[in-house]
């Protein structure tokens, strides 16, 4: 449904997007994950024909966005980073305008009402957009993208500015939309992408660093090998004991948290489960284990890991040439 090949966008000699290729199949929900300035919005702006790529091609349903823009755009609903709203119009007027702009064919009133119901803005349909809260404006932006029922939805950070309850609602909405539409959405938030997307693309500094299913990605990256343990007992002795456990490669004391109780950060060898051994050893010496939690990898950790991997690959690449 969406076919991107060697997409590059340069500003001066800076690459905002650097040689990105991927495809999205019909009915798939693809997540774009990346830190600020990674090139997510730029890629989406190219896909939707807002800006042109410096080189490379993007095809929507077989129509090249540069050669056949009108046909390609007919298949796309786009929610940009800043929802493109006319503040002086009412929600209804605005959606009618978008309906005409997109030359939608559904019966107008019923279609707009239906879209409003889906994104839950029926109660503000007659209000002027500039008086709506940020979250509602975001939803009007989403409604705008749904007008005309386009096959492809491109959503740039669709849950930004929403409260937690709305975030869950919108995520569920996107999931249901995914049954009928092909969707690309961008996000900074890994759990969000995991919750919603079938497949995830990670971009960093304009480069594609990973393209995998959400499960694989999180599985590969969040193996339980880092723990925070809270243990009662003399700090130095406990530390020595922990270091003696086979499978633990690094121990770091995080200092006293309660009287006589310290926290330690443990790093285990990937793949080895040290939890039972840890409990046994501590029980033997009568140092109560008061808490043990796995530290989840943050997005930063994942980027760090992925970008380190990719720069290592590049080095070997360079060596081969």
């Amino acid at each position, binding site marked *: 449904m969406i076919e991107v090949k060697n997409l590059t966008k340069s*500003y001066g000699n800076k690459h905002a997007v650097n040689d990105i290729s991927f495809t999205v199949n019909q009915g798939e929900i693809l997540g774009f994950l990346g830190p600020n300035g990674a090139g997510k919005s730029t890629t989406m*702006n190219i896909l*939707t*024909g*807002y*800006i*042109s790529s410096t080189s490379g091609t993007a095809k929507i349903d077989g129509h090249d966005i540069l050669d056949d*823009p*009108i*046909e390609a*755009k*007919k298949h*796309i609903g*786009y929610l*940009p980073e*800043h929802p*493109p*709203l*006319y*503040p*002086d*119009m009412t929600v209804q*007027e605005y959606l009618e*305008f*978008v309906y*005409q*702009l*997109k*030359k939608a064919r559904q019966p107008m009133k019923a279609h707009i009402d239906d879209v409003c119901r889906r994104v839950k803005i029926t109660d503000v349909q007659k209000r002027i957009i500039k008086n709506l809260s940020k979250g509602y404006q975001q939803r009007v932006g989403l409604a*705008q993208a749904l007008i005309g029922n386009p096959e492809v939805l491109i959503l740039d950070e669709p849950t930004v500015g929403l409260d937690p309850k709305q975030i869950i609602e919108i995520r569920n909405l996107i999931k249901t939309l995914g049954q009928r539409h092909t969707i690309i959405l961008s996000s900074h938030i890994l759990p969000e992408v995991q919750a919603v997307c079938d497949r995830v693309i990670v971009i960093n500094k304009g480069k594609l660093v990973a393209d995998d299913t959400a499960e694989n990605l999180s599985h590969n990256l969040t193996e339980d090998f880092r723990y925070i343990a809270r243990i009662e007992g003399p700090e130095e002795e406990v530390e020595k004991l922990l270091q003696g456990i086979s499978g633990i490669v690094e121990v770091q004391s995080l200092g006293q948290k309660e009287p006589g109780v310290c926290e330690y950060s443990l790093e285990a060898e990937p793949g080895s489960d040290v939890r039972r051994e840890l409990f046994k050893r501590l029980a033997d010496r009568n140092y109560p284990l008061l808490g043990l939690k796995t530290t989840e990898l943050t997005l930063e950790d994942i980027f760090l890991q992925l970008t380190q991997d990719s720069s290592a690959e590049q080095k070997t690449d360079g060596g081969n040439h």
Partner: protein
Amino acid sequence: MLAILKREMSNYFTSPIGYIFLAVFYFFAGMFFTSVLAANTTDITYVFSSLFTVLVFIIPLLTMRSMSEDKKQKTDQLLLTSPLNLSGLVAGKFLAAFLMYCIALAVTVVYSLIRAAFAVPEWPVVIGNILGALLLGAALISIGVFISSLTENQLIAAVGSFAVMMFILMIDGFASLVPIPQIASIITSLSFMSRYNDFVTGILNISNILFFISIAVVFNFFTVRVLEKRRWG
């Protein structure tokens, strides 16, 4: 294009700009017309010859937001990703401003008819005046829309358009300052004023008609180019 035209029109009437434009136009048109009545002639040429100066002040009001506002509000992201080509977009914006201008100009038609009730006017002159005013307006509006596409600040667009139109208004004066006659004659050939005055005096000259139409077409084309270029930026 129709969607754009419709939205722009309703925008003129939801913001004060449309009303200010019409009010100022009607005020001056009314004032000139009463002075014509007071002078007790059927010659409405006076109304139209002053029109140019008024337009220099109020056309920028009409066009300052045309393209700049979309850039600022990021609504251009909606317009440029819709299945609509750029010429349709620019045509919609241009026609909306032109339609507003026609609504304003309609009052002068009414005045002319009122005069006709008193005495038989010279119809070719009246028609020439109205046609000239339409063409001059179209040319100035296309220039205003073009300037508005160069910035996202409507104030800059307004002041810029005003400056450019003022220059166009006074171009004959500048020409007379140029010592080299060849260059001076090139400048005068670009004069809006002398061509417009032909219409005002009832001279219908095909080259004048084509001149204003070409200006309008060329500047609308430039606006399309600006949008295209921005995409490649």
